[in-house]
């Protein structure tokens, strides 16, 4: 066999080997690419889902904050209005009660005063009667009568 044949043969063999190696390399590269792609896709999804989760959390927090603010406002308004209403009602009732109380007190006061006056006048009258019956000096009484008669006659004369 000639040299060129040997060389050619070796070359061919080498070529085949190289080709096989290349094929293998290609296969490995492809596999790697697929794996990389898969990983990349997985990473992207995770990232997206994380982002979505974050967004959702953010939105939720924002929303809940808004809701909380609104609901607290609503509650506050409701409480304020019901408090005002209750306060007005209470004020009205209190006013009415005070009015009634004042009238009652006035009435009771008048009744009590009348009772006291009555009792006092009765007692005074009784005491006076007893005292007057026994204590009035005849001379004093006569002097008083004569003085009054003089006054009456004097005024009559004046007329």
């Amino acid at each position, binding site marked *: 066999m000639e040299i060129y044949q040997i060389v050619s043969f070796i070359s061919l063999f080498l070529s085949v080997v190289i080709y096989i190696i290349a094929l293998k390399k290609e296969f490995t590269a492809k596999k790697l690419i697929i794996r990389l792609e898969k990983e990349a896709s997985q990473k992207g999804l995770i990232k997206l889902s994380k982002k979505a989760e974050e967004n959702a959390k953010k939105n939720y927090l924002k929303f809940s904050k808004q809701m909380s603010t609104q609901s607290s406002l609503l509650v506050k308004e409701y409480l304020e209005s019901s408090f005002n209403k209750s306060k007005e009602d209470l004020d009205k009732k209190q006013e009415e009660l005070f009015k009634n109380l004042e009238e009652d007190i006035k009435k009771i006061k008048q009744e009590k005063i009348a009772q006291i006056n009555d009792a006092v006048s009765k007692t005074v009258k009784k005491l006076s009667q007893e005292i007057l*019956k026994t204590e009035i000096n005849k001379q004093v*009484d*006569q002097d*008083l009568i004569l003085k009054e008669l003089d006054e009456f006659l004097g005024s009559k*004369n004046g007329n």
Partner: protein
Amino acid sequence: MEIRKDYLPKCMLDKDLETLLLATTTLKSLLYRNMSLKEMLEQMPKQFADFINDNLKNLSTNDQLFEKIQQLETYFKGLDELQIVIAKEPQQEFLEEIKKRLNNFTKGVVYLKIKIDERLFAGCQIYYQGRFFDGSLPSLINKYVA
């Protein structure tokens, strides 16, 4: 015919008026029974007898006398009444004091009526010619205490 009042006291009490009215009634009834005026008047207190005598002395006929007595009776019944209400029965001295004051005051004759009301306690109430004066003790208390 005018009534002569020289012998008539200016102030007469119940009993005086009663005496005078009784006298006039008696005089009228006895007038036609031939009793002398003197006999009739002897039965009366001197002052009233003098008064009646003074008014009847110049009258001669029974009719004239009757008319005069009638006139006197009407006069007595129409006397102004001064009523004094007091708390206790007055003594004679006190009555005399009242009469003295009325004598000084009145131009005519007044019939003084004394009424007793214990509720006055002291002082008096006076009614005269439609006027009323309340000087009783309850009224004075009301006046000064109220």
